[in-house]
């Protein structure tokens, strides 16, 4: 029962709610009480439409048809007997308007058209807005000076398609730049109001080009320069150079009261209007002697007036002093060598002013007491030791006369022979004159030629003192002289006068034949048995067994040798001839001796390749009398060596002259030591086998 009751209550409640709802939908003032959902009507034809159950109507109402816009407007759609139906107006587009058109249709030209459309004759159409299929300007601008256009479709209706037509190529106010130009400028073009580019032009240029200079005048005709900087701006002006000395038109005083004007070149013009002198300047040239004039302030000379104390050429004695007037002024010009305050020109008669005139202050001769007082006490013109009065006084000189050695006549004749052999005609002439005049002094005799020499052992000639061994030649004299300083000294000829007196006459350290002055001459010829001259024969001049000199014959077979006077043995040798010897040949001083040889065929060569007359190996003896050399190299190496000598064959071998074969050089260095004690070495240079070597003696102990 309860359930039923509950069910009942529920039913009641549902019913109540349904009732409330239906009541509300049925209200004729509420056109939405019944409606159809748009789009659910399939059958769009006239007549009642069935909502096919999709719509909900209030109880008692039946949905009819679809209202195209699903809007039921009061008075137009209403429910009639539960069916929703139109109220008689046309409700289809294009239908004729009989009883009006249902909203939202409206009548156009007798046909129902949707609001906004018009009857086009065949159908409702929207009215044409624009030219079909064309772009039409909208009147708005766009882009770069372009015109906005809107597309009109084929129905003449505006579309939402826009385009910007007739645009320019740039945006007004924009600029483009490209590369540098001009003075630090840049190429530029601007977009004008028509959105078109202007022509390129150079913009942003500086005022000058870098490095460009500009000058301007400055100062007194000077010039100053400024230079364009790297940023194309002018630098500051430089200093003003080349200025002239003045400003054009400027004037100044110049020279001697003159005036000069500055020229257009800013240089002072010439000085004009000058006077003849400088103010204050004095001059005597324009005046007579010892007068002068002064330049006035107007630069003109004033009158001449007297100047100085005397007239040139005047002389006078004032207080025993002699004065002259060399330049308009009195000047002491006298001679007062004895300082007695009285000049010679003013009557002084002292000996210093007049030789050999004595006064009370002088003595007759110099004495030992006055030989050192630096005065000419006896007025003879000679002071102290120079005066012969002082000769011999301690510390003074000694008077020495020229002394020439007196020679003998035969000595002069010897000398004549020598000069004759030497062909010295001038000397021979002088010697002959001496002999003819019996004048055998070594130098021109002149006892008045003297001098006071500090060294009493001196020689004097022409008033000059010479020390021991001094050597002179008197012009025009016969001999060159040497001073042999004894007491007094004596001049002797500078050569060995006598070659057999046992005296070193010329004091050169060599006596008689040892002195080259006494050299004689050996000459002669070498011929064969047919009296034909022998070329290249050797002449060995020996003293005892030692060869002291050699000579060789020429093409005429002659030889000559200058040699000290003495006694010699001569040997003539030639490889093709037997040697010949002449013994005890005497050569006198400064004399010629002739020694001739006549050789016979044979040979002078010995088996050891030496000549019989000497001990020298001769390459020319090769193959003669048993002489052989190892080869030509050895022969050349040994030529003029001695038997047994060692000579270099080459860099690594040596030969023993003359016939030895090359042997390897063995080089061993000397090494000596002393195990106990001290090693002492003595070294001497000696000649061994013709070469300098060291002889070493070492001791130890």
């Amino acid at each position: 029962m309860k359930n039923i009751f509950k069910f009942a209550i529920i039913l009641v409640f549902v019913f109540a709610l349904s009732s409330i709802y239906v009541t509300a939908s049925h209200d004729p003032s509420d056109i939405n009480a019944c409606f159809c959902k748009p789009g659910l009507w399939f059958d769009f034809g006239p007549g009642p439409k069935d909502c096919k159950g999709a719509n909900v109507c209030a109880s008692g109402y039946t949905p009819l048809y679809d209202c195209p816009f699903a809007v039921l407007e009061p008075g137009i759609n209403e429910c009639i007997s539960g069916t929703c139906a139109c109220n008689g107006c046309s409700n289809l587009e294009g239908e004729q308007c009989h009883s009006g058109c249902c909203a939202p249709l409206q009548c156009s030209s007798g046909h129902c058209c949707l609001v906004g459309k018009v009857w086009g004759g065949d159908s409702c159409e929207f009215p044409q807005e624009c030219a079909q299929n064309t772009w039409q300007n909208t009147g708005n601008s766009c882009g770069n000076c372009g015109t906005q256009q809107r597309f009109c479709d084929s129905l003449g209706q505006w579309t939402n398609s826009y385009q910007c037509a007739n645009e320019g190529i740039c945006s007004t106010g924009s600029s483009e730049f490209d590369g540098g130009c001009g003075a630090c400028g840049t190429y530029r073009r601007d977009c004008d109001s028509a959105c078109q580019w202007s022509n390129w032009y150079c913009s942003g240029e500086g005022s000058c080009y870098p490095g460009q200079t500009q000058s301007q005048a400055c100062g007194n005709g000077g010039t100053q320069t400024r230079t364009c900087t790297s940023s194309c701006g002018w630098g500051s002006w430089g200093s003003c150079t080349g200025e002239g000395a003045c400003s054009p038109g400027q004037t100044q005083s110049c020279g001697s009261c003159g005036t000069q004007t500055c020229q257009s070149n800013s240089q002072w013009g010439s000085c004009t209007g000058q006077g003849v002198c400088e103010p204050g300047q004095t001059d005597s040239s324009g005046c007579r002697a010892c007068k002068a004039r002064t330049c006035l302030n107007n630069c003109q000379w004033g009158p001449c007036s007297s100047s100085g104390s005397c007239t040139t050429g005047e002389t006078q004695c004032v207080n025993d002093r002699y004065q002259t007037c060399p330049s308009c002024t009195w000047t002491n010009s006298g001679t007062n060598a004895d300082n007695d305050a009285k000049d010679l020109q003013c009557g002084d008669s002292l000996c210093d002013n007049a030789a050999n005139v004595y006064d009370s202050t002088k003595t007759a001769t110099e004495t030992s007491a006055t030989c050192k007082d630096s005065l000419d006490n006896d007025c003879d013109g000679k002071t102290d030791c120079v005066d012969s009065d002082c000769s011999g006084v301690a510390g003074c000189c000694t008077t020495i006369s020229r002394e020439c050695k007196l020679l003998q006549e035969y000595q002069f004749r010897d000398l004549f022979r020598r000069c004759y052999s030497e062909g010295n005609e001038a000397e021979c002439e002088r010697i002959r004159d001496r002999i003819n005049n019996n004048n055998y002094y070594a130098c021109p005799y002149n006892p008045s030629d003297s001098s006071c020499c500090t060294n009493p052992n001196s020689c004097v000639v022409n008033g000059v003192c010479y020390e021991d061994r001094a050597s002179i030649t008197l012009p025009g004299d016969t001999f060159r002289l040497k001073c042999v300083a004894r007491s007094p000294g004596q001049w002797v000829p500078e050569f060995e006068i006598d070659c057999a007196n046992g005296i070193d006459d010329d004091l050169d350290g060599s006596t008689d034949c040892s002195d080259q002055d006494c050299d004689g001459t050996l000459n002669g010829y070498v011929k064969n048995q047919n009296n034909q001259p022998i070329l290249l024969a050797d002449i060995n001049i020996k003293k005892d067994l030692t060869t002291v000199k050699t000579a060789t014959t020429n093409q005429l077979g002659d030889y000559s040798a200058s040699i000290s006077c003495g006694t010699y043995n001569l040997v003539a040798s030639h490889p093709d001839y037997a040697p010949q010897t002449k013994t005890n040949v005497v050569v006198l001083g400064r004399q010629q001796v002739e020694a001739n040889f006549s050789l016979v065929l044979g040979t002078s060569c010995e088996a050891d390749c030496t000549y019989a007359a000497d001990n020298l190996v001769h390459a020319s003896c090769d193959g003669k009398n048993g002489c052989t050399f190892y080869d030509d190299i050895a022969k050349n190496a040994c030529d003029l060596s001695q038997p047994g000598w060692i000579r270099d064959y080459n860099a690594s071998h040596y030969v023993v002259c003359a016939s030895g074969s090359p042997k390897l050089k063995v080089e061993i260095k000397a090494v000596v030591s002393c195990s106990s004690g001290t090693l002492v070495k003595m070294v001497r240079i000696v000649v061994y086998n013709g070469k300098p070597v060291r002889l070493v003696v070492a001791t130890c102990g």
Partner: protein
Amino acid sequence: MKKPNYKIDEIVLVFIVVVIVMIVSIFEQNASKTIEAEKITFLLLDDHKLSIANNGEVNANKLKEVQNMGYEELKNSLNVKNDFCIYIEDENGNIILSKGSTKLNDDGFVCRE
């Protein structure tokens, strides 16, 4: 027994004297050798029966005579006490001839009899 009372100065003096004697002795020994070396050089180069040179030039025959002599014979002839060695060397220091005591020999090449 009283100990000798030496002063320091006396000891130093004795020491100095001993040192001087030693130095003099050494110098005398060296001087002796120098004199002997000079003597040998003089005898070999100047006028003497053993002289091997005349006016600074070596005489090959005399040199051969000396070479043929024994060392002791040469030493006695020269009348010297210290051992010696004589040799000739060229400008390059190479030995040409030598004669002397083996006591001065260092490598077996120089100054052998």
